């Protein structure tokens, strides 16, 4: 009894994902096509990368609100840099994202400011930068580099590149978390910062690195998105940080840090994607109501997860 409850709680997002997917498969013919599955995955890939970085940040007990802005900034600078070729289109957004993340990390680790405030500031700052680069959104850079476009739209064995990239990074991220000293430091800092410090874990360095990683991945997600859309779209990324946080938390990572896994985050990201996809299947639901349904669904999922957690905590030890 206890084991199964624990299992369900740990893989709660996965269980809900399976259930929702099953309902979708049975109820909507449009949902159970290969094309639709491909679209769903490729749409989820950028959020996946952002949520990957967010998982690291939240595991340390922090939060990164700047990723939505960095995401859109990354897309715009990628499209702009694509005039100088493939490498520039890829590297510039990574550098920009990592730079913003580094600022976050240094401020959080060295000034003792709350991550919420620090990353709120960089959220505004990065959005401002994006507007400066795009002259108030009036300049839309088109992606000039053909190889870069292929990165967003090409496929291998029928699966689009962004999906492969996200999958590989999630596997790598999982290895980093579980099998490297840095990964252990991430869990230790989030689980008990004081203890981590006394046990000799480099707390500040760990914090700086997770925020830099989060910024880097958000910039990369922006670049991939620009490659896919063929231009640096300036109206994206509002509320993306909240989607990423939601995906991580639905995936079972504690918002207070110290416990969680990337497998849960994948499930969380896909769950959000499937919900959105199913709402699209229903057809003529106005966008405004789509959001209402999406929000309500999210609430239901979270309540279900919480009650499962509670079940576990009262289960006999």
């Amino acid at each position, binding site marked *: 009894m206890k084991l199964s409850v624990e299992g369900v709680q740990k893989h709660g997002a996965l269980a809900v994902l399976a259930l929702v997917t099953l309902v979708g498969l049975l109820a909507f013919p449009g949902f159970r096509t290969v094309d639709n599955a491909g679209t769903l995955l490729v749409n989820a890939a950028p959020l996946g990368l952002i949520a990957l970085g967010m998982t690291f940040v939240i595991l340390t007990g922090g939060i990164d609100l700047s990723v939505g802005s960095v995401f859109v900034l990354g897309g715009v600078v990628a499209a702009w840099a694509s005039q100088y070729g493939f490498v520039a289109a890829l590297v510039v957004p990574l550098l920009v994202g990592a730079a913003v993340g580094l600022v976050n990390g240094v401020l959080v680790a060295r000034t003792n400011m709350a991550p919420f405030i620090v990353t709120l500031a960089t959220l505004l700052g990065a959005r401002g930068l994006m507007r400066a680069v795009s002259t108030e959104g009036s300049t839309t850079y088109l992606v000039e580099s053909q190889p870069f476009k292929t990165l967003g739209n090409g496929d291998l064995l029928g699966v689009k590149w962004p999906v492969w990239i996200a999958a590989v990074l999630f596997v790598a991220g999982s290895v980093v978390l579980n099998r490297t000293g840095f990964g252990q430091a991430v869990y230790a800092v989030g689980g008990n910062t004081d203890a981590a410090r006394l046990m*000799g874990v480099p707390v500040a360095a760990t914090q700086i690195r997770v925020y830099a990683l989060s910024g880097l991945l958000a910039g990369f997600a922006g670049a991939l998105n620009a490659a896919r859309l063929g231009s640096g779209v300036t109206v994206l990324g509002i509320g993306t940080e909240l989607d990423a946080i939601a995906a991580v938390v639905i995936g079972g990572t504690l918002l207070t840090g110290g416990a969680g896994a990337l497998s849960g985050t994948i499930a969380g990201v896909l769950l959000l994607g499937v919900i959105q996809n199913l709402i699209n299947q229903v057809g003529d639901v106005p966008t405004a109501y789509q959001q209402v349904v999406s929000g309500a669904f999210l609430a239901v999922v979270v309540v279900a997860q919480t009650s499962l957690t509670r079940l576990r905590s009262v289960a006999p030890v």
Partner: protein
Amino acid sequence: MLEAIDVSKTFPGVRALDSVSLSVRPGEVHALVGENGAGKSTLIKVLTGVYRPDAGELRLAGERVRFATPQEAQRAGISTIYQEVNLVPLMSVARNLFLGREPRRRGLIDTVTMNRVAAETLRGYGITGDVRRPLGQLALGAQQMVALARAVMVDARVVIMDEPTSSLEPREVETLFGVIDDLRGKGIGIVYVSHRLDELYRICDHVTVLRDGRRVHSGPMQELPRLKLVALMIGRDVETVRSEGVTGFSEESQVADSTPVLKATGLRSRHKLHGVDVAVRPGEVVGLGGLLGAGRTETVRAIAGALPLDEGTVEVAGRPVRGSTGAAVKAGIAALPEDRKAEGIVPGLSVRENIALAVLPRMSRAGIVSEKRIDEIVTRFMERLRIKAAGPDQPVGELSGGNQQKVLLARLLATSPKVLLLDEPTRGIDVGAKAEVQSLVDELAGQGLGVVLVSSDAEELVEGADRVVVLRDGTVVAELTGDAVTADGLLGAIAAAAEKEVEK
């Protein structure tokens, strides 16, 4: 091996260390004792690289060293186990044990080897079971053992132990002493901090006594009589200590045969209490005795309205109290929680604010608080309880454990309660503060308060209480009154109850 020479450290308003020297030789167990606030913790933090000294120097194996961070101290071979377990509860036992020095294979952590070695190592400390469990699932004592194993596993040259036994069961204490003997044999120096004098005399070779940030004595442990040690710590004459005793309780208060101020009848709560009756008359101190888990804390919590009851009533001065903490407080029950950190003080607020917290509603007129009256109360209690602080505005989190406890007590007393529930009021505080808290309890009872005292310290219980109710498995098994209230009587009652259990 490790030397601190004329180390000083000043915090805003407090001279925490004033030219203190300490020298630990290889294979020596060096006791570091002193009252709370004497500077032990600060000295330890200087030795372990948490603080940098303002003046003076550290030498390790004769060479001058400076530690900028705890990592550097650890790398140099100084390991520490702290009074409160400083590990990460959500991470697995094995990962806690190896954090920062995991076995690697091709650059990655080798989890298989790590778990195997962890299981083998911990078996030597009496910890069996799955090392992949989160550490938080272990009992506190077992967690402390993991911390110990971790400290010893590194190639430590010096191990610093800050009250390592405060959360250990007697059996675990023996394991700890075994480990200490091993370390001594290997020529490792040990700094041992404890308030338990028996332990100090049993395992320590040398002792350094601190008081008010200064070193007042250093010499071989066995050459220092116990009475003299206590006198040094609290800064009084040996004669005074002898005449007043080590605990601050005075003899026999006169209890009139009046109606009970607190009467709890037939307290029942599933798995925890099976019909406990306690009555306390004004001016009486009733002790709750028994082993750990006998239902002492649960009884106190039930009276305070914090433990939901299946059956049973609690009356204060003849009036029934509905089972909630709010109702209990209103009826005049004040409870000192067992865990002062989690349930009591607000570390970020000042001494003044912490004391005033509970009385604010009473001191306000039309919602406006009279600052002057608060100041009066705060000053009165700070003097009366001899709270050692830079001033009423110092944050409570900066005070030593004993002083935090006094602040908490002051807050309770400021509400002028009728009944005082004290659960382990002297745990983790030093001899001097202990005596002060004890004499205070006496004084309060003398003023007509009913007091329920829970203590694991048999001596404290029998000297403090007029009557002792002995519990076992959630029921009252004996009641000691008058001349029967002795340590032997208490142990006898507990033992007899245990025998009855066996017969059943």
